[in-house]
């Protein structure tokens, strides 16, 4: 596995090769992907986390009631120990998986949909492109976390707020990546040919431009989702998470608030490991997929 294709995130990202044979190319990608051990491991971790999120009610009861065994280190009864109110940390992490994955998936899907539409419109209607790239440039040069904090604090913490706030500041990155690819596609002869056949830009965009940028979108989904996990955890860590549901960031926030963060190592370790596992597997997945998709870096 190599990371050679990694380019500095400039506004004009280097365009990826465009796959012409869509069906056969995806089969070849999968064959190449299966040979990437790290990619497979990342995929397994990701699927395991999704399974944990879906099966949370079966794995642990919802940690709501306070217990008497306060700040107990990991033991046979409480695998991950207990928090400062005597609640089971294992249950908190398990239920937190659900919330973290939900936020990541929802926020990244909204950001991807919006970001892709903006990018493709910009690439196709060149007159709008200048304005779009200026806005994207401006948004990417602002410190987003403080802005997210301001909005989340004003609107009030809830799961919907977190999802919308994270999505609202993740789409420019998607637009940046997809735009450069879409610009290459729009210049290709088959799009010109399509213009001769129809006058409907939506048809051309839907049938020709979007399919050609799909691989870039797939990578974007994974990268945006992992960024969303970090942003949502950051907001929750500052006390702007949904106070009614468990999330990994909220466990860390409560540990910090109770002053137990430095003495009870398990309170930080387990949610941190969960965040790390999710983000790292997402990053590795996107790298492995990128390598597998690119015939030049495929292993024979």
């Amino acid at each position: 596995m190599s990371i050679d294709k990694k380019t500095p995130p400039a506004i004009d990202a280097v365009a990826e090769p465009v796959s012409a044979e869509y069906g056969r190319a995806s089969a070849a990608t999968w064959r190449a992907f299966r040979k990437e051990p790290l990619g497979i491991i990342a995929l397994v971790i990701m699927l395991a986390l999704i399974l944990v999120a879906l099966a949370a009610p079966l794995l642990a009861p919802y940690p709501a009631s306070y217990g008497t065994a306060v700040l107990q280190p990991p033991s046979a009864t409480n695998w991950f120990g207990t928090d400062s109110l005597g609640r089971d940390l294992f249950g908190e992490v398990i239920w937190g998986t659900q919330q973290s994955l939900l936020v990541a998936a929802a926020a990244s899907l909204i950001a991807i949909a919006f970001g892709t539409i903006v990018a493709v419109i910009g690439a196709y209607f060149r007159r709008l492109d200048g304005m779009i790239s200026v806005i994207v440039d401006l948004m990417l040069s602002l410190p987003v976390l403080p802005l997210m904090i301001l909005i989340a604090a004003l609107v009030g913490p809830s799961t919907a707020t977190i999802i919308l706030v994270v999505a609202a500041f993740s789409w420019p990155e998607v637009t940046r990546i997809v735009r450069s690819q879409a610009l290459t596609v729009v210049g290709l002869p088959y799009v010109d040919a399509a213009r001769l056949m129809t006058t409907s830009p939506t048809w051309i965009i839907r049938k020709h431009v979007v399919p050609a940028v799909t691989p870039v979108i797939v990578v974007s989904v994974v990268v945006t989702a992992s960024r969303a996990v970090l942003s949502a955890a950051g907001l929750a860590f500052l006390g702007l998470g949904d106070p009614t549901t468990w999330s990994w960031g909220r466990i860390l926030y409560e540990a910090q608030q109770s002053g137990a963060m430095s003495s009870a190592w398990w309170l930080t370790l387990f949610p941190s490991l969960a965040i790390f596992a999710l983000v790292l597997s997402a990053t590795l997945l996107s790298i492995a997929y990128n390598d597998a998709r690119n015939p030049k870096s495929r292993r024979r």
Partner: protein
Amino acid sequence: MSLASFVLRRLGRGVLTIWFAVTVTFLLLRLLPGDPALAVASPNMTEDARVALLEQYGLNEPLIVQYGLYLWQLVQGNLGVSFTQSIPVLDVLIQRLPWTLLLTGTALVATVVIGVPLGVIAAARRGKLADRVVQIIGVTGQSLFVPSIGVFLLFTFGLVLGWFPIGGAYTTGTYGAEWYLSVLSHLVLPATSLMLIQLGSYVLTMRSTLIDALGEDYTVLAHANGLPARRVLWKHALRNALLPTTTLIGLQLGFLVGGAVLTETVFAYPGIGRGIYEAVTQLDFPVLQGAFLMLAATVVVVNMITDFIYGILDPRVKTA
């Protein structure tokens, strides 16, 4: 393009970015559900003080007039009054800004000083063990959550080993050289956390641009001329590969500042980030708004400086 017009264009861009940040903040504050008065006036104020403040900001005027007034207030450096401390937001933030600059500046310098050589080593030994290790560091580093790494460092080196203090920015009651030493020892752990989350992107960018530079004709020519490989790598290829890294500094600044907010919270470091955390707990909206604008302005200014450096390093930028 002459140097003067290059500088002017960059300045214009900086002003545009700050205007954009201000406008986004204004629109968000006015259009989001919730009382816009919250952004300037505390619900706990006396009625007279509240009315006076709302009038100063023209919150009873039409939106466009409010926008004009908002810009005018900002130009005068008026960011409102902190609910909790009852002093101008600007005063609250100005005390905190040097600490944030010290922390992020140190982290940035450390990232470049450590990240560039690591990237060079990886590129020079492409495919070898050293390269794999550096790549693993790069990818892992990009997946770290700042508070996690911060607490880990704090726990290990602060509590268990006791090498460094566990919070704050200096030891109270120390003076002169002793004070500077205490500032330094308080800086180590937060700056290291911030450096670790940044390192990955720098290492990977450095590595890939250097690999590209090593494949260029001029490096092939330098090799063919019989120059030692080490000299070609460090003198010829690295100089050109450093340029994208300069761009990366600008692009990562927003991320660095976000990381600083979380790091300062973990280490109780008295910068703007810790101020944001405290303002969140007390729902002190003027401080949150002012902090965002001040951080945005800082990012823009530093970005302009890196652009100028880029222009000096790469003569093509000015002629393009």
